[in-house]
């Protein structure tokens, strides 16, 4: 049982005489393909002839790949964090100038329309908001403005929208008795009044 029998020796000799099929090309093609696939093929987990697991690609390959992957993830996380941090800091600084015009109070709807038109025609950086005359500087003769003090700037006022129409002409009101309307011709003869045309009935003695 523990030693080969004579007929087993004969079988071994016979098996050494078995003709080998001509498959060298396909075998070498398979070897080349497996070598081109890289060191991380499943076959790398097999034991070496010495019985150990010291195949070169088995432990070193996946270990290096895993560390490299973690390193790549770490770099991505750091870059993303830095980008997010600076992006969060820059955004308010960029938006701050744009918020200034929006903070100016508008008097009424017509003023808002004018501002919008100006914004469309003129670049945003040079926009000058026109103010109504009522909102401007008012110098009062009896105040400190005559003494060289800075003019007093009044807060925005609510202006009547009717005052903004340019073509509006005030209609004067005339008293019919005391004031003559301009542009009208005088009737009758100069120096004669209506009292001179008093009609009276005279007695006819005929």
């Amino acid at each position, binding site marked *: 049982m523990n030693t080969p029998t004579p007929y087993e020796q004969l079988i071994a000799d*016979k*098996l050494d*005489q078995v003709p080998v099929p001509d498959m060298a090309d396909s075998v070498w093609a398979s070897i080349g393909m497996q070598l081109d696939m890289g060191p991380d093929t499943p076959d790398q987990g097999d034991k070496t002839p010495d019985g150990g697991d010291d195949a070169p690609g088995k432990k070193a390959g996946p270990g290096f790949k895993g560390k490299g992957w973690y390193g790549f993830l770490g770099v991505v996380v750091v870059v993303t964090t830095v980008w997010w941090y600076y992006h969060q800091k820059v955004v308010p600084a960029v938006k701050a100038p744009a918020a200034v015009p929006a903070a100016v109070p508008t008097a009424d709807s017509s003023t808002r329309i004018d501002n919008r038109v100006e914004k469309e025609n003129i670049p945003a950086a040079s926009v000058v908001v026109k103010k109504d005359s009522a909102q401007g500087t008012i110098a009062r003769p009896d105040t400190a403005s005559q003494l060289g003090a800075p003019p007093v700037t009044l807060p925005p006022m609510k202006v009547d929208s009717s005052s903004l129409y340019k073509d509006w002409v005030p209609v004067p009101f005339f008293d019919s008795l005391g004031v003559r309307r301009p542009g009208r011709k005088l009737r009758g003869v100069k120096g004669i009044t209506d009292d001179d045309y008093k009609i009276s009935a005279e007695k006819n003695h005929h």
Partner: protein
Amino acid sequence: MTIAMRYAVDEYEAADILGHAFVKMFRSIHSFDATKGNFHGWLKKIIINESLDHIKQRSRFTSLELDTAEEPFVNNSIIEKTDAAAILQLVRQLPPATHAVFVMFAIDGYSHKEIASQLNISEGTSKWHLSEARKTIQQKLTAIKDQ
């Protein structure tokens, strides 16, 4: 290729075993130590290990204990007259585990202890497989003689 042919069920599996064994040899060439043995023996061991891996993938080794067994008688003249390809086909007809144990013991010269270590089985199981292989081969050779 001859070594792989003994363990494989056909020439295609033998070519597959040989390819994998050569890839393993190329990748672990740096671990070859000439003081422990020659290159041919080292490569032979790689091919046998690869063959056993293939056999393990397609079969399971059950635990069957056998201490002693009666050795069947086989007439040597029958084997001498039989073609080598027919002998190989006869060996391939054995069950996979029995096939592996028989080739390792009878042809490649492994001991039962080494076979048990390689296949992760007990020595008794290895002996049982060898006994089964001898019985089967003796029956088939007898059948060939009767033809």
